[in-house]
């Protein structure tokens, strides 16, 4: 079943066109990693899907155009984990995770709201942080809190913008395992922007590679990640290995000469 269909999506900031005519479909329950160099439009695409930005072209979520859905309805269905870095004033970790219930709850929180919050806190392993001030946490801890907030939101589609950016390798693997586990057990569809090709290849069902606001290719890591394509898209010479346990391993060697 198709979870999300995007047709002729275009977006510009003032006169600069960021996304050029993107068309693609993602199946329900899939975990898609967006990869591509800086400025390729990964973050913009994620913001367009969550209707934080207003692009032209249509985005259908479960066959319904998100332009016909209210903001709150979109929030009930799509969760978004932005990049870390901004502060949240006077909020404990519990408060921040509870925020994820905003589209679902009224003024008072109900039993099931608290259950979702507890479940998200447990899943991300941040029980020992619940009473801490969000602003006092390390970048990696904040990242896990933001993922927990999106999990508490109980969305059908989860968007993550470089969720492993500020995590050490242990917490990177842990966070991505949690996200994949969520996707495979609950059927939640996941789209996340990831920089590291090895990490993306390891956890994604399919990859979508962007460059300059256009889709270079969509496919399984084996189909998409080749030394030629990495040279074309990233201007980097690389070597690709196949590890029996983790699959594709991309080792960048040097920037392609003559580009600068």
């Amino acid at each position, binding site marked *: 079943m198709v979870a999300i269909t995007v047709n002729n999506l275009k977006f510009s900031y003032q006169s600069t066109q960021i996304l050029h005519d993107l068309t693609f479909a993602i199946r329900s329950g899939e975990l898609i990693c967006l990869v591509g160099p800086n400025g390729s439009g990964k973050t913009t695409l994620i*913001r367009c899907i*969550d*209707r*934080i930005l207003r692009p032209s072209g249509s985005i259908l979520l479960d066959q319904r155009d998100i332009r016909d859905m209210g*903001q*709150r*309805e*979109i*929030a*009930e269905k*799509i*969760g*978004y984990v*932005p990049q870390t870095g*901004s*502060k*949240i*004033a*006077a*909020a*404990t970790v*519990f*408060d*921040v995770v*509870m*925020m*994820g219930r*905003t*589209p679902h*709850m009224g*003024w008072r929180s109900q039993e099931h709201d*608290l259950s979702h*919050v*507890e*479940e998200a*806190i*447990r899943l991300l392993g941040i*029980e020992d942080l*619940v*009473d801490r*001030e969000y*602003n*006092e946490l390390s970048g990696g801890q904040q990242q896990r809190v933001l993922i927990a907030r999106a999990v508490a*939101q109980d969305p059908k589609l989860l968007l993550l913008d470089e969720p492993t950016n500020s995590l050490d390798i242990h917490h990177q693997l842990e966070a991505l395992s949690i996200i994949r586990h969520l996707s495979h057990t609950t059927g939640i569809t996941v789209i996340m922007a990831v920089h590291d090709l090895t990490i993306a290849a390891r956890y994604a069902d399919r990859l979508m590679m962007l460059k300059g606001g256009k889709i270079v290719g969509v496919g399984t890591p084996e189909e998409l990640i080749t030394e030629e394509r990495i040279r074309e898209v990233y201007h980097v010479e690389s070597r690709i290995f196949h590890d029996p346990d983790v699959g594709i391993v991309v080792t960048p060697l040097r920037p392609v000469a003559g580009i600068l």
Partner: protein
Amino acid sequence: MDTGWIRNGYIQRTQGRITILLILAVLLLLLTGVAATLGSYPIGVIEVYQTILAGPGADTEAGTIVWDYRLPRILMGILTGAALGLAGAVMQGILRNPLASPFTLGIASAASFGASLAIILGAGVVGGGYLIAANAFLFTLIAAALVYGLAQVRGITPETMIMAGIAIMYLFSALTSFLQYIGTSEDVHAVVFWMFGSLGRSTWETVTVAFFIFILTFPVFIFYARSINALSAGDETATSLGVSVEKVRMLGMGGAALLTAGVICFTGTIGFIGLVAPHITRMIIGGDNRFLLPGTALMGAIILLGADSLGRTIMAPMILPVGIMTAFLGVPFFIYLFLRRRRDYW
């Protein structure tokens, strides 16, 4: 793993916050009783409560003193402190800025200009005894409308609103200075005195106006408390959580301006309380606006009434303007709380 303790912790914190609200309310009631005993005519605390409970129109000397003279001033003090505190908490929330206050939008200088216009030129929209108040009220709302108009050109963000507010503040300050420059020294003195902020002009009419504006805006703020909470995580996150960011910000700003205009048009500008009452309350009750907003209203009322009571007694029979007293009283308390705080809020 059992995670019931997380839920229990939340329920306990919520109960704790409700308890704090109740304690603040009781403190305010006690302070009201004490404040009504202050003055040249001696009335005991018990007698004050009896007189208040007996209702107005009791034909006793104590009844007249309490109902006609002391209660209007006390109630105006409560409403002014509550309005300024609440407006400050809302502004800090919607602008995500710890330095925001009801006066961030240039409201104080606009009100001062309106009052100056009435005092110096005798010009205004309404004649009679409420010329100054009507002018101050009107110009406060004009300032808010100008800030909104300027800010919405580039999108209603904290940055655009604060920039527009600063511009408007300097505009009205310059206009007020101009009026003072051409005004007589007597008039200028009256303007300066107005700007100190005082509860001396309180009557049952001013209490009624301030009360209705408070009753109109308070529920709106409380209704949007969760949305203001989400705003603290940034516009983008709030949007993705289903909050209409611009609507909440516009309602918050409009409500705060109305609330502020409704009291300072009668009292003159009383600074500091709108900045500090939210911080003090946040340190005690936390950042959840569902509790912070009512808590700040109570805290603002307590501080202002306390300051005015002290201002009336400390150099009696001379009465110090409450605008001066709030700073004298609030600053040390604020610095104390600021220095001993354990958490990094902003």
